[in-house]
């Protein structure tokens, strides 16, 4: 549970097992969760959320590209990247541009910490 209490969370991951498991976990923790199988789906059906959890590796637009789109459209939604492999290294500051990233498999603590960081940094900036 975050300090901010129940959150409204959106998850974009093409892997159904991961999607389902995360939704189950976060709901069990008391959050509202919506899931999307791709960036394109998210863009089409997105609703307002406190935080967007995005898998970096996606068919079509990947996590970075989704972030860019959102930012270019002026969205300030806090984002957490989740990743199943090295891909662009998590330490690559340019790529991540301060976006908290957790590598799979991660514990609920790591995820919540990342969400908290994303939400608070957003708050701090703005």
């Amino acid at each position, binding site marked *: 549970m975050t300090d901010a209490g129940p959150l409204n969370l959106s998850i974009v991951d093409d892997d159904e097992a*991961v999607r389902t*498991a995360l939704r*189950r976990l976060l709901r*069990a923790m008391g959050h509202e969760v919506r899931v999307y199988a791709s960036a394109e789906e998210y863009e089409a059906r997105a609703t307002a959320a406190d935080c967007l959890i995005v898998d970096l590796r996606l068919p079509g637009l990947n996590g970075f590209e989704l972030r860019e789109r959102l930012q270019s459209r002026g969205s300030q939604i806090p984002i957490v990247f989740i990743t199943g492999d090295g891909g662009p290294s998590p330490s690559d500051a340019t790529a991540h541009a301060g976006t908290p990233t957790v590598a*799979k498999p991660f514990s*609920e603590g790591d995820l919540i910490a990342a969400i908290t960081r994303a939400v608070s940094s957003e708050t701090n900036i703005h």
Partner: protein
Amino acid sequence: MPAATNRQLAVRLAVGRALGRTRDLDDVYSAALDTLAECLDVSRASVLLFDPDGVMRFKAYRGLSSEYRAAVQGHSPWTPDSVDAEPLLVPDVTREPSLASYLPVFVRERIAALAFIPMVSLGHVIGKFMLYYAAPHAFEDEEVQLVGVIASAVAFAVERGRTHEGSRRSDSPHGFEPNASVIGPWEWAVTPGAPAEHLGGLPSGTLRQVRQCDIESDRDCLKILGLDGRLLYVNPAGVAQLGAEDSRALVGRRWVEFWQEKDHEVVEQAMARARAGTIGRFQRPTRTLAGVMKWWDVAVMPIVDAGGVVVQLKAVSRDVSAQWRTEAFQAGQHQVLEMIATGAPLAQVLTLLVHVIEDQCEGMVCQALLLDADGSHVRLGAAPSLPEEFSRRFDGQPLGPRIGACGTVMQTGRTVIVTDIGHDSPWPDLRDAALSIGLRACWSAPIFSSKKKVLGSFAMFSDTARGPHREELRLLETAADLAGAAIDHHRSQEALRQSEERNRAILRAIPDWMFVLSNDGVYLDCHVKNPGALLVPPEVFLGKSMRDILPPSLAEVFERAFERARTTNEPERIEYSLDLQHERRFYEACIVRCDSDKLLSIVRDISDRKHAELDAAAQRQELAHLNRVLILAEQSGALAHELSQPLAAILANAQAARHLLDRTPLDLEELRETLDDVIKSDKRAGMVIHRLRELLKKSSAVLQPLDVNEVTREVLDLTHSDLLLRRMPITTALSPDLPPVLGDRVQLQQVILNLVINACDAMSTVEPAERELKLTTVADDECVQIAVSDRGVGIPDGHLDSVFDPFVTHRPDGLGLGLAISRSIVMAHRGRIQAENNPDRGATFRCFLPLANGTADVSIGMNSVVAMMSPG
């Protein structure tokens, strides 16, 4: 060829035996027909002779109806004047226009084919020999030659029989068969001790019953002997036959002295029997006073006085030289044939032949000359009775005038008669040499092969200037004929020997082992240079069945190969291995049919090659493994992703479950679903690890029927996330219902993986939107094809083949092993791989793998990769 001459000899011997036994002409025909049935399996045949009016008449026949004989009586392709008559063969009577008028007769008699074989004596046709067949018949040369041999033997016997019958008719009727009833009228009343008064004539006073006329005019040599064995009287025929001037040279001498010493006992015994009142008989040769060797058939009878007391002896000797010669000739001929048949050296056979002929005619010497195989030089065959300095003149000479009459004979193939060497000879050099050793006439006949090729000449030299009489000409013909058989046989034996020698030389030169086996797998013979290298020594396996020698599974493999070799008549190849004491050896056997009932198995030890192949395979395996490790290293990101996804799901689910447990009431349904998802994800992770392990394992290949589509999908599963990450959009067109290929799953996965990675690499510099990776599978009757095409940079000109060479790469970070390994794997699967540039853009790699069915020998290619599949 050797078989043919052996058969010819067999026929000659058989016909000689059959004809030698009999004098009666009917028996001769019968014997000839028997021989025909026995040697040629012809059941219907006939012998016809020209009668004195020149009409061809049946003399003997087998299997012919009287209607038929009546219908064809008198038909003959030849007249008694025909010379150089050749056999007339009619393989199908319906196709022979000249016999059209006889066709209905043939049909009624069920004759579909026939042969006319002329019987020739002294060049003239005396009759014919007929063979009849119920079905159309393709005549073989050998068959016709054999019938020819029988026909000429019968012609000889007919001529001889006619002479014999003629002489029998001219014999005096009471002839030479002394018996008790004949002795009576021949009784003599002799005053004991009274010497013969008229030495020139019969002691007339002593005759009680005068048969003077009979005695004096008797054609046999008739003598009266005293009990002491001295000659008292010799009749005029006797004086002449003994070659004496008159009886004075004979009377008073002891009779026994006229005989060779070794025969004295026989003569004395015959006289003793006569003195005892019975008849003594013997047959012995002795020379006349003129020195001529003659054979005598002798009977010694008692002459008794009125009181029945033996007072003198009567000896009747008949000159049976002619008859004896005929018999001696028969025996001699037989001996010559047997010598030929038993493979005696040609010179010995010809020498015997010359002796046999010389024995037939007093005062003749013979010579056999041979024509070299080149047809232009002459060799001395045999001339045992001619001085060596004379006969040597011919040896080695080129065919020409120096050879004299025989040269002409060999050049023309015709008999040459020189009646007076002193006058007729156009060869002065030779003439003088001949005259100096007393040769006055030369008669020479060509020696022919069974195929009518001139092989040499046979010459008879006479010490008087004259031509040959009928009998002598026939002897000459017979001698030439026998010499032909001898030379033919010798040459074919020689050819056989040379070919055997050649074969032996070839055998010596080749390292392969050869086994001759019967159709049912019994070892009959073998050629093995190093028997020590065999599983068991020859003396153990010869005569035994494969099943008793080889491991059962291998014997079965051989039996199947035998069956195929027998039915297809094509060579069959099999590879196998055997475990000898210290090592496994590998062999390749080629099996061919030989004869109708045997098989030849040529076995080569291919262990060295096989071991080299195995070494190469091991190296290839190492490289393949290295290639897989490299692929995995490259793909580590994708693999980590593949693993982390299920692990993430598991962890999230587990932690969710903990939260669910804190709730009241417990949502058991949700908990069960959560745990089910954990299990599912765990299995997924397990699969990834399993595949990784497979790829990393250094295992031997395992051949199994594989669905190429399935293998392709497994590769795509593995590379899915990598392709996603690298933005390689992939499309597949997998033909449904692909027939299986025989292959190793991991190795084929590796091939496809390499091709996919290669395609991705080729597109790495291409805009993502332009990329396209396409996997296609398709099958035809022989192969399954896997095609991987990209829209990348393509293959530089001239590198379509070299892309498969190891360490050839166009990537900065690659080792260049992927395609090389892929090709070696595909080739080990008896397949092929090729690269081509697409017409518009990029390249396509096609890999063809043979279908699992009908490709039994994939195992041979793979057994280098796979543990050896062969038995042993």
